[in-house]
Structure formats: structure tokens, C-alpha cells
């Protein structure tokens, strides 16, 4: 299906009270936009709105100042209802220079609020952004509400008393801007002030300057004569179930899920990985948590990382490795070794734009085929995907459970969007999670490395250091009966069948597929997997509000598929599968179930917009007719 977009017709700041708002902060990669966004997120969560965020930063760490390819942005969608995406069109755009304006203006709605640091609109910066004429002067921004402030000048005045000099003083621009936006939405500054004090504990004068800038920005909103129609907006608090909440990114939820998995399995975990964007943050997070039974190993390359993880699993710990697409490709021989030797292994793929280096900081779902099929030999392994930042926690636990219970490598698919996006999370009660303690084999009598559990078909886990269990394993095909090397043709058939049956059998140990929104039968099911959840959910919700017969199904278990999925999908007249690839899951569904499922594909390095999926739903429903 062709990708099209519909305007969602939101409130767009016409009233003093608005149901939801999308704000985007954009500036140079050195302007501190991510820090600004994170602080605004904290304040918004504390205020009581539901929210979702989308950090969007360039691959270059410090691109030349003012360059369009160096623009770093942070988008937040917050509101009174459930928010599951970072939003489509922008209601408020904050730009710190001309490059940020030219790269983001297309997404600002007509009548939207544009906050501009006019001090950065110098001839030099305008040239770098390829503006022939200053857009602040040529009338091209007339359809927006423009708030032009020389933020640089304001900041220098606000921090003058600290004698920091021009260069250091100007660096508080982001905090001044944050102060203004906090005022705009009636948010509290206390959290930001606390975090600045912590962040700059060793440089109190920098902390004080930033706080002064924050307060000055806030005071500017209160006291300056702002253009008509710009005032404090009220966004009603979201109705959420009682409990203790926190914000969490997908990366942190995944890291904590791995720790939780190790606790529930009562097993040591070795996380071995090699730095790669956007997966490295998982290593950065886990290294802080070695007070649990977690150790980390930064290997010399991707292959060493997976091999060290396999070595740890052989020795009785759980080996976990992580990367993005190019690194997972390098690991594939190792993954197959784990499959052949039937050792547990968790492989996390934080997918990014491909092929090759592709778009390292952008999101995509194009590694599904590799996860399902990208290994030599007949090498089946479970593949599961997380659908939201907070879902990463449970999916990581599930990966640990499957790997240790079935003695198999497990592929966990996340992506660049999930990794960096944050959302509020009702903190679960960890005591309510069912433990699944691992049992290493210890009986030396009649021991063979080929002994397996008749129900799960999992091979025994006999770790070095256990008296009487000395044995050899390896990549050469082993005898089903003894575990020794075997080149016997019938045995290879039997072992190949066994490997398939073991993974296929996992379908009996995973939940039945549920419909997450709508009916279990009807005209149209929109079927997604992974991080498309948020956009599909909102689009289906809106379509149902319009009275359309649409349901939303989000699949976590991609291999093996839930055993009721075929029956469920066949109870709908038609199936639409939005994916951030050229149609990898839709082909799986079509080939597995012979269903005429239709694809909706977007491969732009950006998540789906709600309006894009809604447009596809409308188009699809129109072709189905009213009587079908």
C-alpha cells in the first residue's frame, strides 16, 4: 500500500486548555537539546501527563557549528489521554539556529508556535543553513506564531554575575529556553534545579549559572510582553492507574530486564559486547549494575563478543551479547555454534537503518529476515521483539527464560527508536514475577552430554567444575545417543529434525496471541511487531472512534509464532501490516498462512506517524465496501 499521511486535526494551541501537545527542541549537536528534552520530560511526568519521547540526533558527535547535518532534536508528545508515540505534527518548535529551523519547519502545523533564538540568525549561520534571505525577515514564517528572542543576549545578562566569560556563559542557552517552555506549560522547575546541582556538583558556579538561566527564561515568560495568543497552556493530567511511576528508556528497561532475568533464573550473567550505535548504551547501563550477578566484557570485536558469551554459557553462566545489524551479521557463525552445541545465549539486536553502515542513529525494522533466516545451515532459534520502551523489560526476562529453559540462542529485536525513546512506567512489583531457577546437571552416573529433557527437548547443562561430567562438545554434528562426533547420515537427519522440533515446541510455552485493541474478528486487523506499536495503537483507536471495524494485533513472538495466530488472522476480512522495512513480516505471514495480507512500508529512518497508518486504514476500509 502507498504511504500517505492524514492531518489528525488536533487542537493546536487555539485554546488555553489543550488535550495534547507535541513539542520539539532542535539545535546544534553541542547545544544540549537532549539534556533540555530529558529535563522537560521529567517535569512533564511529574506534572501528571502521559508522554512519549523521541530523541533524534545526528551520527556526527560534533558536526561543524551551524551545519544542517549537525542538528540534534528531541521531541516529546504529552497529553491527557494515553500517549504511545512521539506525535506526528509539531505544535511547538524551538530552534536554536537557522539549520534547526530549515530541517524541522516542515513538521510544524499552521498556527503552531515557533520559538527562535534570533541571536543565532547571523549571516554566517544563515549561509551555513543555505538561507538566501533571513526567514525571520522575509514573511515566510507568517503562518506560524513566531516568538523571536535574542536568547544569547538574554542568557549572557542572566549569568553575568558569575563572570564565566562569553563562551561558557552562552552554553546555558538551553536552560534559559527550557525555563521558558516550562513556563509555557506550567511545569515545575524544581526537578531540573536538583538535577543541575547533581550534574555540576564539582562546579557549583556552573550549576548556579545554569539555574539562573533557567529562572531567567521562566521569568521572561511571566513578565515580557508576548505576542497575542501566546500564554500559559493547561494540559489536563492523564487518567492513569494508581501506583509508583518512573520514566524509562527502552535501553534501560532492556538492561534491567536482563538483570531481572538473571535474578529470576538465579544465574550469573556475562554481557559481552562491542561498541556500536545505537546498541552501546546497553553495555553502558549494565556495567553500572555489577552489584547484581552481572559481569560485563567489552570484547575486541563482535565475533569475540558472541564467542565470549558462548564460553560463559559453556562454563555455566548465561552469556548475553548485543549489537546492531552489521555486528549481528558478524556474530552469525557464533550464534550457529550455540545452536549446534545447544548452549543458552541471548542476542540483542538494536536495529538501525541499513544496509551496511546505513543510518546508524536512525531506526528501522529491517533485520527481521536476518533474525529469522540469517544463518548458515538449518539453524532455528526463537525470535522475540519488544514493542514499547517499557515492554523491553518483560521481553528481556522472556529471552532469558527461553534461552535457559530450552538451551538455545534467542534473538531479541529492539530498534533505535525503542532504545532511545522514553515513557512513564508504572513500576512493577518484582516479587510478583515467577522465578525460573536454572538447574545445572550434577549426576555423574551414566552421564552423557546428549541427555535431554523429554518435554522441552533441551540438552543437559553440565558445566565444567562438576566432578564426573567431563565431556566434549563442539560444532561438529554429534550423535543423538552419545553426544560424540557423528557423521552418520541418519543421525544428521535426526539431529536436524530435533533442532527444529525443539524450537517449534516453544509455541506451546508462550501466550496465545491477543488482540490489543478491538474485536477478535471483523473487517480489518492491523498487525504489527516491534516499535510500530505506538503509531498503530493510536491510528486504530482513532479509526474505531470514527466507527470503523478495525482491530490492532501486535506480535511479540516472531519465531515460533503463537499457535493461534493463523486462526486469529483468518477471522478478519483483511490484514494490513505496517513495517519499517520493505515487507519482511508480511511475507512471513503470507508464506506461513497463505493469507493475502497487505504491506504498508516506510523505510525513512523515522517511526511511522499516526496519520500515515490512519490513512492506510481509511484506504483499506474503502476498498472493502460497506457490506463485506
Amino acid at each position, binding site marked *: 500500500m502507498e504511504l500517505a499521511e492524514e492531518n489528525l486535526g488536533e487542537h493546536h494551541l487555539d485554546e488555553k486548555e489543550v488535550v495534547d501537545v507535541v513539542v520539539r527542541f532542535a539545535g546544534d549537536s553541542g547545544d544540549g537539546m537532549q539534556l533540555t528534552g530529558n529535563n522537560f520530560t521529567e517535569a512533564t511526568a511529574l506534572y501528571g501527563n502521559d508522554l512519549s519521547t523521541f530523541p533524534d540526533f545526528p551520527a556526527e558527535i560534533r558536526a561543524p557549528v551551524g551545519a544542517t547535518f549537525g542538528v540534534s532534536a528531541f521531541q516529546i508528545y504529552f497529553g491527557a489521554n494515553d500517549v504511545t508515540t512521539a506525535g506526528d505534527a509539531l505544535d511547538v518548535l524551538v530552534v536554536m539556529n537557522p539549520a534547526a529551523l530549515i530541517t524541522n519547519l516542515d513538521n510544524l502545523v499552521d498556527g503552531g508556535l515557533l520559538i527562535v533564538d534570533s541571536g543565532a540568525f547571523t549571516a554566517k549561520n544563515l549561509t551555513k543553513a543555505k538561507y538566501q534571505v533571513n526567514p525571520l525577515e522575509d514573511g515566510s514564517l507568517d503562518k506560524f506564531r513566531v516568538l523571536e528572542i535574542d536568547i544569547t543576549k538574554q542568557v549572557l545578562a542572566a549569568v553575568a554575575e558569575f563572570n564565566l566569560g562569553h563562551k561558557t556563559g552562552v552554553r546555558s542557552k538551553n536552560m534559559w529556553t527550557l525555563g521558558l517552555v516550562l513556563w509555557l506549560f506550567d511545569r515545575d522547575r524544581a526537578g531540573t534545579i536538583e538535577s543541575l546541582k547533581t550534574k555540576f556538583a564539582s562546579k557549583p558556579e556552573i550549576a548556579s549559572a545554569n539555574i539562573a538561566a533557567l529562572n531567567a527564561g521562566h521569568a521572561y515568560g511571566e513578565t515580557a510582553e508576548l505576542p497575542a495568543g501566546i500564554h500559559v497552556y493547561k494540559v489536563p493530567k492523564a487518567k492513569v492507574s*494508581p501506583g*509508583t511511576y*518512573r520514566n524509562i528508556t527502552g535501553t534501560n528497561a532492556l538492561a534491567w530486564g536482563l538483570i531481572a532475568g538473571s535474578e529470576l533464573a538465579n544465574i550469573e550473567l556475562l554481557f559481552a559486547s562491542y561498541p556500536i550505535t545505537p546498541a552501546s548504551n546497553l553495555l553502558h547501563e549494565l556495567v553500572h549494575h*555489577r552489584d547484581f550477578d552481572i559481569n560485563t566484557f567489552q*570484547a575486541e*570485536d563482535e565475533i569475540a563478543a558472541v564467542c565470549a558469551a558462548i564460553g560463559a554459557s559453556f562454563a*555455566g*553462566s548465561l552469556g548475553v551479547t548485543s549489537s546492531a545489524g552489521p555486528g549481528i551479521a558478524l556474530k552469525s557463525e557464533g550464534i550457529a555454534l550455540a545452536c549446534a552445541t545447544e548452549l543458552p545465549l541471548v542476542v540483542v539486536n538494536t536495529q538501525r537503518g541499513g544496509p551496511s553502515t546505513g543510518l546508524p542513529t536512525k531506526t528501522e525494522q529491517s533485520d527481521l529476515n536476518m533474525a529469522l533466516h540469517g544463518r548458515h545451515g538449518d539453524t532455528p532459534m526463537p525470535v522475540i521483539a519488544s514493542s514499547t520502551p517499557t515492554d523491553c523489560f518483560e521481553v528481556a526476562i522472556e529471552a532469558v527464560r527461553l534461552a535457559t529453559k530450552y538451551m538455545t540462542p534467542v534473538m531479541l529485536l529492539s530498534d533505535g527508536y525503542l532504545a532511545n525513546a522514553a515513557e512513564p512506567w508504572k513500576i512493577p512489583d518484582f516479587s510478583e514475577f515467577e522465578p525460573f531457577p536454572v538447574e545445572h546437571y550434577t549426576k555423574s552416573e551414566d552421564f552423557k552430554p546428549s541427555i535431554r529433557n523429554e518435554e522441552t527437548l533441551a540438552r543437559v547443562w553440565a558445566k565444567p567444575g562438576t566432578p564426573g561430567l567431563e565431556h*566434549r562438545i563442539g560444532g*561438529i554434528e554429534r550423535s543423538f545417543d552419545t553426544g560424540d562426533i557423528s557423521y552418520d547420515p541418519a543421525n544428521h537427519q535426526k539431529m536436524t529434525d530435533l533442532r527444529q522440533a525443539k524450537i517449534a515446541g516453544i509455541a506451546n510455552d508462550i501466550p496465545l496471541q491477543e488482540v490489543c485493541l478491538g474485536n477478535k474478528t471483523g473487517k480489518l486487523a492491523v498487525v504489527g511487531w516491534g516499535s510500530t506499536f505506538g503509531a498503530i495503537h493510536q491510528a486504530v483507536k482513532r479509526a474505531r472512534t470514527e466507527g470503523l471495524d478495525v482491530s490492532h494485533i501486535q506480535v511479540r513472538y516472531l519465531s515460533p509464532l503463537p499457535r493461534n495466530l493463523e486462526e486469529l488472522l483468518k477471522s478478519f476480512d483483511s490484514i494490513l501490516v505496517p513495517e519499517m522495512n520493505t515487507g519482511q513480516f508480511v511475507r512471513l505471514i503470507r508464506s506461513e498462512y497463505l493469507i493475502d495480507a497487505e504491506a504498508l512500508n516506510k523505510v525513512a529512518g523515522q517511526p511511522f506517524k499516526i496519520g500515515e497508518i490512519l490513512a492506510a486504514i481509511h484506504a483499506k476500509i474503502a476498498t472493502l465496501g460497506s457490506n463485506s
Partner: protein
Amino acid sequence: MNQALPKLTVKDYASDQEVRWCPGCGDYAILKTIQKLMPTFDQPKENQVFISGIGCSSRFPYYMNTFGFHTIHGRAPAVATGVKLANPELDVWVITGDGDGFSIGGNHMLHVLRRNVDLQILLFNNEIYGLTKGQYSPTSPPGTRSPSSPTGSIDFPLAPCVVAIGSGGTFIARTIDTQAKHLGAVVTRGHEHRGTSFIEILQNCPIYNDGIFNQVTDKKIAADFKVELVQGEPIVFGKEREWGIRLNHDSLNLEVVDATSDDVLIHDETNKVLATLLATMKGPDLPVAVGVIYSEEKPSYVDDSQQQLISIRKAKGSMTELLHSGHTWEVE
């Protein structure tokens, strides 16, 4: 561990698998020596682990009745590092060859040496690819005629011990497959060393590279072509021990002199510069050095990792505390 260990013998270390190397392969001699040596370490057998990559040498673990893992080509040092990190109590051995260890697996060899992970690496160097039927390897001399180089190889070879020293290796030794006593003594020293012990074993491939090391193995001539290094002893060789090695102070190269010369070098295995020069020695001008070339005390990666863990885990993590760490808020 105070409990007396059962006395083990060579038989306890032979697995029930039929050994499948070619008749006359140097690997048989190495296997026999290692099987005899293992009981002398007086360790629980279940703590000994042999890990290999791919190639003729890498079948070794199948024939040892210990824990063993025949992994993938070139990656044994990485797997072994994971094993050792997961359980530092294990006595880990890596078995590899010149192709496995220095061609496809060169990167892992470099890094395991640099990190000084506490394990023994036995590199079976036969200067040829055996299992894939005779192609030249990264240690083959230039001009080697093989199925993939019928007109002579044009690669310059590397010297494993020199690369190992350059990678930051802390125990570097060289020995010979059929010289059981020397092999046993060198491996025993390597086993005692805390850190990565790198032991190059010159190993004859009777099928594809027969006699490549004849100069150092043929009893009739070997004394003139190899020098046995002994810590604190003069570096002398020859049938009558009539030759010595000294440093030419002008060229900074080693050279052969009369053994009675007063500037014959004394072997000092802690001297890295000397070790590098000795590891580089080869014919026709210089003898091949065997024995412990270099030894250095240095912290081992796994020891340091354990130290950090012990310090960090003085206060054990709590999942509930982690989940509630940082900013949280209540909704009523």
C-alpha cells in the same frame, strides 16, 4: 581445598574417542606428553578445560578426558576468555594452530595476550594448512608451493613468538613436538605462570610439510641449528657447545661467536628487548631459540575483573531498589 585428590594417571586423561590424525603426525606426540603431564598438576580433573578452534590441532580436546569445547575457526581465545570470566577457578587451555591462531584468529590472539587472561595457549605450528589439504599458512616461508600457490607463495610470514611479545604477552616459549621432556618442562612453566602463557610448538606435518623442522629435530644436526635457553645461563649451542650468541653493539643484532668469547649473552627471560631478538632468530645465520623466551609478572584480566566485582558486590544489588532508583512519582 584440603581434601586429598584421587591420584590420576595418564589413562585418566585419554578419552574414549579414536584419535584420527594422520599416521606419523606430530600431534600424537604432543597429545601423549600433555596427557602424561596433566596428573602432575595435582588438580581436580573436572576443573581442566581444553578449548580449540578449527584445524587438525583443534581436534585435540576430543582426545582429552577433560571438559572440552571444539569451537569455531580462530575464536578459541575469545571463547576461553568467556569461560575464564564465568568461572576463574577453571584451568583453561587453548589449543590452536598457525592458521587458526594467526590467520583467521589473529585478532583474538592479539587481544587475549594483551589482556593477559590466565590461560595456556598451545600453538601447534606446522607452517601449513593441514585439514584443508595443504595450502600455505601465515607462517609458511615465501616460495612455499602448495595447492593455492603452485608457483610459490609470495606472502611474508610472521613469527608467532615475536607477534606474541609485541602483543604484550607475558609468557612466551617455544618447544618441539617430539621432544617430550623439553615440551613437558616448558608447558609446566607455562602452567605455573599467572596470565596468558603462549607456547609455540614446532610440529611436523608428515603429509603436507614433512621435515620442515628437520634442522632442529634431526639429532645429527639439531645441536648446530637450535639453542636451548636456560635462565641465568650463557646462550651457547653446538655439538660441543662451542658457539655462543652475543649482541653486536653497532647493528643491535644478535650474532654467533665462539662460546669462549667473554661477551656471550646470559639468558634473562625478564628482558623484553633480548626476548624479542631471541624470538626473531632463525637460520641460516642464527640458531632457533627454544625454551622460555620471555616471562613477566603482570596483573591478569580475570584477576582484575574479579577484584572489581568483589569490591562492587560488597553491597548486593536489590531489584526493587533498582526499579525505584532515580526520579519516581506517585499517582493516587
